[in-house]
């Protein structure tokens, strides 16, 4: 009996070892790193069966895009490239939920993605050695790329990302609700307050700024610029200005007046609340345009920048977007760069498809934008016209840690009634120590 037990347990351990070995064998297959694609193709022809050992697998991570068809599209791009490039296979990882938390922890390991999306390339990632310089991909095409989009990927003269899409964010409004209430599109915060109150009928609210009532970082970018203020100048954090204090006070008044929609089941990035008629105005991005037009009818869709603090300030639009970066620690840096070049530099069909085929985005390249007919008429065209006068983006030294500090301070004001001047002063001090830590390294 004992012998049998011993034998069985030996078998069990053996089976475990085999199973674990199988798992570790897979990444080992991706090891042959700098091997150029063409030689591995030859060797796979020579071998009797297609040798998976020489195959380079490129892990490509995306955050979960909400628009229908986006997942199928990225899988299609990956398959197309894998089919035309022997010895290289692209695997797509579509990350639902908290993309940056997943990405950040994956980048700490040796098995992080080879190619991934970022919003703004930030300096802390360069300090951590996460990003591969991509200057050589831009040879001859650099002038074709939008300047604001490039601002988000260049650090100290080196390019770390290829802009894929630009995502302006602004306020949508329902024109027929405006007409019914006799309201004109507001251009200042006082007008916004008046419009919001006039449009609030109880069942239909005036404005939707997400369930936190407007403390999401992207909205805060816009409100800061609309208060004649900015984030960083040189090595100083500068958002604590009297105008910004006033802007926070006005937003608190907006919350207290009760005209905001709160408690919707969708958040700001989903136009559901506007489409379902729960609110007359909502802050979203251009990506939502096809859905909004379908729900409200094109003649009913109005767009406007975030209103200025007063007549002396300028309204604002935040130009966000996504860039493609290559993991500097990837064993397949060259193959990954070739893939990125094919996808976002050489291949106009994909770029047009990705920018206007599902949700709407502004193509970061002039030559592609010229071919994007979907953006040339209707409210989408109005959005494009807002970009030059009102569009802005955040500096590369503004990191996620500073976002957290700024958002929390703003939430304290909106939700807990803290004093805006005190909160802004404390937040500026805290953000400054983050910036010092970043720059002194």
């Amino acid at each position: 009996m004992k012998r049998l037990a011993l034998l069985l347990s030996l078998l069990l351990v053996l089976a475990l070892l085999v199973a674990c070995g199988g798992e570790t064998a897979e990444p080992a297959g991706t090891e042959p790193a700098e091997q150029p694609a063409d030689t591995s193709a030859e060797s796979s022809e020579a071998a009797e069966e297609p040798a998976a050992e020489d195959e380079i697998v490129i892990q490509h991570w995306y955050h979960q895009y909400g628009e229908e068809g986006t997942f199928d599209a990225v899988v299609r791009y990956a398959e197309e490239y894998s089919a035309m490039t022997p010895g290289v296979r692209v695997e797509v990882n579509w990350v639902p939920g908290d993309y940056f938390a997943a990405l950040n922890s994956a980048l700490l390991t040796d098995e992080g993605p080879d190619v991934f999306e970022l919003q703004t390339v930030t300096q802390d990632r360069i300090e951590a050695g996460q990003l591969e310089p991509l200057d050589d991909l831009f040879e001859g095409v650099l002038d074709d790329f939008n300047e604001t989009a490039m601002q988000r990927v260049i650090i100290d003269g080196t390019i770390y990302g290829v802009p894929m899409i630009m995502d302006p964010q602004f306020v949508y409004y329902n024109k027929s609700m405006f007409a019914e209430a006799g309201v004109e599109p507001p251009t200042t915060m006082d007008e916004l307050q008046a419009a919001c109150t006039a449009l609030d009928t109880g069942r239909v609210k005036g404005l939707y700024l997400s369930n936190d009532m407007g403390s999401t970082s992207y909205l805060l970018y816009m409100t800061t610029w609309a208060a004649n203020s900015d984030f960083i100048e040189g090595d100083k954090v500068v958002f604590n200005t009297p105008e910004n204090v006033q802007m926070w006070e006005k937003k608190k008044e907006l919350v207290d007046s009760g005209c905001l929609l709160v408690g919707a089941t969708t958040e700001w990035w989903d136009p559901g609340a506007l489409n379902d008629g729960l609110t007359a105005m909502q802050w979203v991005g251009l990506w939502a345009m096809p859905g909004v037009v379908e729900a409200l009818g094109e003649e009913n869709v109005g767009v406007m920048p975030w209103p200025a603090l007063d007549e002396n300030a300028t309204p604002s639009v935040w130009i966000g977007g996504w860039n493609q970066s290559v993991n500097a620690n990837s064993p397949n840096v060259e193959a990954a760069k070739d893939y990125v070049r094919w996808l976002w530099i050489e291949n106009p069909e994909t770029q047009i498809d990705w920018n206007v085929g599902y949700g709407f985005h502004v193509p970061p390249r002039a030559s592609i934008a010229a071919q994007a007919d979907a953006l040339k008429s209707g409210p989408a065209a109005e959005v494009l016209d807002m970009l030059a006068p009102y569009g802005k983006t955040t500096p590369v030294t503004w990191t996620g840690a500073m976002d957290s500090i700024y958002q929390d301070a703003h939430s304290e004001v909106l939700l807990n009634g803290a004093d805006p001047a005190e909160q802004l002063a404390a937040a500026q001090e805290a953000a400054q120590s983050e910036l010092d830590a970043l720059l002194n390294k």
Partner: protein
Amino acid sequence: MTTHELVETAVSPPPSRSSRKRQDTIEFWLFVGPLVLGLLAFVYIPILWGFVLSFFRARNSVTPTEFVGLENYLELFGDPRFLDSLQTVIIFAIFIVPVTFALSLGLALLVNNAGVNTGLFRTIFFIPTACSYVVASLVWKTSLFNGLPSGFANNILWAINEINPIAWVNTADPPYYWLVLVTVRLWLQSGFYMIIFLAGLQEIPRSIYEAAMVDGAKPGRQTFRHITFPMLRNTSVSVILLLFIEAFQAFDEFRNILATGGSSGAQILARPPLVYLYNVAFQDQNYGRGAAGAFVIAALIMVVTVVQGRLFGFGRREHQ
């Protein structure tokens, strides 16, 4: 030679003592080895690594770069957001522990005395334990307690007295969000602790009740106070201990109910330390400070456990 050894020699040829021993050792490690390896690799080494990390600068990296002594700990206690989170979790624990305790004990007494269909009731109350915190949180947030007129809670308020819709999760004053957070945890946890209390109740010998009955005790409050509750002391102490630990580790429902997409959302209303530390580590990518915070929380849980052990005498024998 004892009878036992005699029998053994008769059954099989006597293996030499040392080879028996060696075989036992091999068997021991075959069975225990994988577990020990797993514990080392996934529990003890990470804990040690985290401890080392908490004394180093580690931004955007889990490799210790520069020794900074206690700086991470000092920064942590200098951050009002962390102090707020400690306050939040302590208030939460002081509230949720007795409420869950009372509710699960009450349920256990009811089910135990149901007479008929005990199994059915036990199952019904236990089922929520099998539900994930994330799923339950999203149901609570988007369906039962959403802020729209069509939300379940708002519908009921309207039906009762035409009360206007309330934004449950986002109203700071009065703090309705606590209602959402507390009810979801009660729903998820009470069933589990009810089962533990049921087991405790069934351990109490019937004879004690019978003896009390003979002495003229009335069933109900009197027997509960003088028999049931004292006999449940060890069960109660372990339930309180587990409840405290779980309260200090609160994360899932706070993060899923109060956070919104791509922002810190309404988190500041009630942010327990683990949510704060999750943000510090995985959003701000400050792993050194995140690790330091984890050890502060661990220390806090230990202190509470030890104090509680002293107060209630955990592990003392039931009849002393």
